């Protein structure tokens, strides 16, 4: 089983990314869970979202405390959300930030595992035209965690976008460009 924990702020798309990942992983024939954990319902409040992906049916309905991968969409959450907590050995943390690896590492509280710093804002602005960091972070996760074959992901996410953005198809091209650019730029 692969377990993933997402940290973001309300409005940044952490929940959407978790649900899209559940969607594309489902299409590969596996069992999935994608769910949010809400605090107070307001824009900007920290939110956590989770994924489980497995070959067998998933019975546990609890939050995830020892994830294989953690995705941080907002680097101001690194300390307050204790993002490095519980990460399994062999796993990794992916952080959206413009800061250097050294600066980020210093803030991870002695974390010794793998981590990746990704400028998702840059990718998003270059492709979508606005700062929507969740799709680049999702794409980076799929590549780094090796959740599925890249081509399978690209076609799966496109199908999901057509479903999700049925009423605003004009945003699909930009999001697909963000997916492809991330897959090129990120070194797993």
């Amino acid at each position, binding site marked *: 089983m692969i377990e993933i924990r997402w940290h973001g702020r309300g409005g940044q798309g952490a929940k959407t990314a978790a*649900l899209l990942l*559940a*969607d594309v992983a*489902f299409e590969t024939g596996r*069992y*999935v*869970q*994608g*769910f*949010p*954990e*809400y605090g107070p*319902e307001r824009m900007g409040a920290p939110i956590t979202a989770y994924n489980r992906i497995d070959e067998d*049916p*998933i*019975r*546990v*309905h*609890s*939050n995830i*405390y020892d994830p294989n991968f953690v995705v941080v969409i907002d680097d101001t959450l690194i300390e307050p959300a204790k993002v490095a907590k519980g990460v399994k050995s062999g796993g990794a943390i992916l952080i959206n930030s413009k800061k250097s690896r050294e600066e980020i590492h210093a803030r991870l509280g002695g974390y010794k595992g793998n981590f990746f710093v990704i400028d998702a804002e840059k990718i998003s602005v270059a492709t979508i035209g606005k700062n929507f960091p969740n799709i680049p972070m999702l794409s980076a996760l799929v590549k780094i965690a090796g959740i599925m074959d890249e081509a399978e992901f690209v076609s799966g996410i496109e199908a999901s976008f057509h479903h999700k953005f049925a009423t605003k198809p004009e945003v699909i091209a930009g999001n697909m460009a963000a997916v492809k650019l991330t897959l090129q730029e990120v070194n797993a």
Partner: protein
Amino acid sequence: MIRERLSGNEAVATAMKQINPDVVAAFPITPSTEVPQYFSRFVANGQVDTEFVPVESEHSAISACVGSQAAGARTMTATSSCGLALMHEILYIASSSRLPITISVVNRALSGPININADHSDSMGARDAGWIQLYSENNQEAYDNLIQIVRINEHKDVMLPGMVCQDGFITSHAVENIELLEDEIVKTFVGEYEPEHYLLNPNETISIGPYDSSNFYIEHKRQQAEAVKNAKRVVMEIGKEFEALSGRSYGYFEEYRLDDAEVAVVIMGSAAGTAKETADRLRAQGIKAGVLKLRMFRPFPGEEIAGALSHLKAIAIMDRAESFSNMGGPVFAEVKAAMYDLETRPKMIDYIYGLGGRDVRVESIKTVFDALQEIVKTDETGDVYRYLDVRE
């Protein structure tokens, strides 16, 4: 069979689409809001021919349901928490008027303090209102139960309203795999609603809900109790019929590794899967752990539960609601009463757990099994009324 991935709320809305009720009247409240939201889209898109009535409160929603079901229309609604509490007065009108209305309840804590997350205090507050209550572990069961309860409610020997419960956010907002039935299969399974007596029947003029004097009231209550008794039989019959077309088995409860178990937990809702996982892990260490997952809380299957648990050494009953009796929660009270008539019975303790969405982990359930093993070892029950994972 259609392989899909849906949240619990999407699953319920999909079941409603396939059932295609005559009337849905609803008022939004977190976390059930999405159910009427998705459903109103089906109405707008012409995918159902339901009359959708957006009302100004839950009291109005269930009142509109009473009116339309009395008129002879198959009627449904969805609600949570304080919404169900605001319906309270009318829940009794619905059941005593023998109106087989269906509510999809997305369980959420009652205020206060105000909280939007899962526990069973809302539906437990309605437990004596004369409604059938089925609880769901996941999106699949929320979907399957909703399809079945329409048939149970409308059965001529029952004619009672019923609610299908699932845990707010934990399953209502979690996207998981699900197997859907084809539209035609659901349509055939639920069939047409053909009430014997209804207001819009020009050949039989009747009055519904008039004053009932002391000379008749208790007889009507006795008939209502008989209908609840009949519901027990019908739940099983409909479960068998549903299994024949879905392959998924439904009874009063699920017995998980209970046959040779020495210790077990009794649990309802989303934490049941977590409990089964815990039992498996303990079995791997040689501990004879089992789980009884309760699906039907009203009517309460007391005799059958006593039969399934009589051989155990110690059991923990898990309550996701307080009843402030100072004697444990509502499930505990029922299970303990059901066990009383046994010659010998296991030691029983109660845990209040998961209130206001407090997360229930494998590690949490493990501490419950640890406590049960301690009881078996020492032969001392200790405090029967306990809280799980609480800071004191």
